[in-house]
């Protein structure tokens, strides 16, 4: 990453460095009724994720004979944004649900559970920009917590551009006022990008730089996901 972005007195709205993530807190195993669950705070985003399955697929005709079907739901609470939004799923919710599925599918051994379904539900309790990435981060931890066999974890964050500068992990204001937003999900051990979207305008060089920047962010988030998963078994180290 080039250091040229740092030299002037330019500042981000929340005082972060250009390549700095928002504060992140992840907790696993927060919902007693789900097979696996996680809660994430990423900046002011507050998201809860629950996983159910693998279980018998209903309705049956949607089942696939050779693999499990991953069903994802992205949903926002009516009070998560200003002004209130209707609880009915929007076109945006449906699209994000789909890209979430594409982001997570490559990490899961779906072929081990033919004719069954694995349901991943994410609920945005408060939105603050970059909710789809935060949802993917929480969903991954919930999938591991559910004991679903996986190839790798999936970490996600966005990079983008505001005031002509490239930045990591856009907040709500930067998302709305910026010139570009590139949400990206990444499997660190397998070195594969599983979600890549972009809106705005970037040169090809900037685009490449954004992807690199987002991947660096994902690697940091990956470490936090690991810690969250290990924390649930924290007593492990102290026992004789």
């Amino acid at each position, binding site marked *: 990453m080039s250091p040229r972005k740092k030299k002037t007195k330019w500042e981000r709205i929340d005082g972060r460095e250009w390549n700095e993530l928002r504060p992140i807190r992840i907790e696993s195993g927060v919902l007693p009724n789900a097979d696996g669950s996680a809660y994430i705070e990423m900046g002011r985003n507050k998201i809860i994720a629950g996983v159910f399955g693998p*279980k018998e697929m209903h309705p049956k005709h949607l089942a696939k004979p050779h693999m499990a079907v991953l069903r994802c739901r992205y949903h926002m609470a*009516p*009070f998560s944004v200003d002004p*209130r939004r209707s609880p009915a799923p929007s076109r945006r919710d449906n699209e994000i649900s789909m890209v979430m599925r594409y982001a997570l599918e490559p990490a899961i051994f779906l072929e081990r559970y033919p004719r069954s379904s694995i349901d991943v539900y994410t609920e945005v*309790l408060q939105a603050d920009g970059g909710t789809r990435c935060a949802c993917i981060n929480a969903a991954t931890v919930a999938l591991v917590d559910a004991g679903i066999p996986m190839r790798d974890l999936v970490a996600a964050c966005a990079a983008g551009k505001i005031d002509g500068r490239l930045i990591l992990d856009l907040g709500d204001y930067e998302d709305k006022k910026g010139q570009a937003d590139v949400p990206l999900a990444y499997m660190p051990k397998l070195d594969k990008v599983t979600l890549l979207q972009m809106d705005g305008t970037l040169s090809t060089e900037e685009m490449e730089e954004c992807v690199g920047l987002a991947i660096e962010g994902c690697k940091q988030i990956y470490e936090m996901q690991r810690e969250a998963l290990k924390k649930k078994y924290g007593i492990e180290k102290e026992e004789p």
Partner: protein
Amino acid sequence: MSSRYGIIPRLKRKKIQETLATGKRMDGRGLGDYREISIRTGIIEKAEGSAEVYLGETRVLVGIKIGVGAPFEDTPDEGVLVCNAEFVPVASPAFEPGPPDEKSIELARVVDRGLRSAEVVDFSKLCIIPGKKVYVVHVDLYILNHAGNLIDASAVAALAALRGAMKPVYKIEDDEAVLTEKKEPLKVRKLPVAVTIAKIGESFVVDPSADEEEVMDARLTVTVDDDGNICTLQKSGSEGLTLDEIKKAINIAVEKAPEIRAKITGSE
């Protein structure tokens, strides 16, 4: 396929009835005991008011959003309160994504009737321009974990959230409502508390757990205001209740309500 969750597990029913006959419940509570209630407010900064309530493992998040809209035609100088409940699919394997089903509509309506009948807020003070602009208060109940007795938990959460809610102040310029920077409390006047009683076999229990709700014969929710008056009744379940049983349930509710109300007032 929610029908699979409608099947009454006979073994569970037998065990719960046997245990109740000894004056105890499966989780060790007495018949008239509530589970632990904990309340946290102000957790959704983007909402005008919010509260998260744990009733045992039942977990409800309530967000209050206050906007402006047209009044109802029959009450042109009163504000509007709208209650909505979402059974979020993370809360239970029996909940499925989709439009609200009859149970979530019942929940929203029972809580709504409690708030409205007791007049928790002075609706005439929620008028900005009579006949044109009034405050619209949205109370959204978000069920995050279903471990039984959603009505009582939701009613507590709604009240706790409303108590802490701040409404934006409007000033009137040329007969138009203009938003100012100022905010003021919504002012909650009453605390109507819902108490749910389940009838299982011959026993009456308060605050039924998910297992108890699965096997109960009938349920009665009684909402009691600060003066001990009843403001809402809702009978549910496919068994009937005798007049004596109804009286008994109401007495239990009136006795229990102040204890729950104290939890709400002690939450700040």
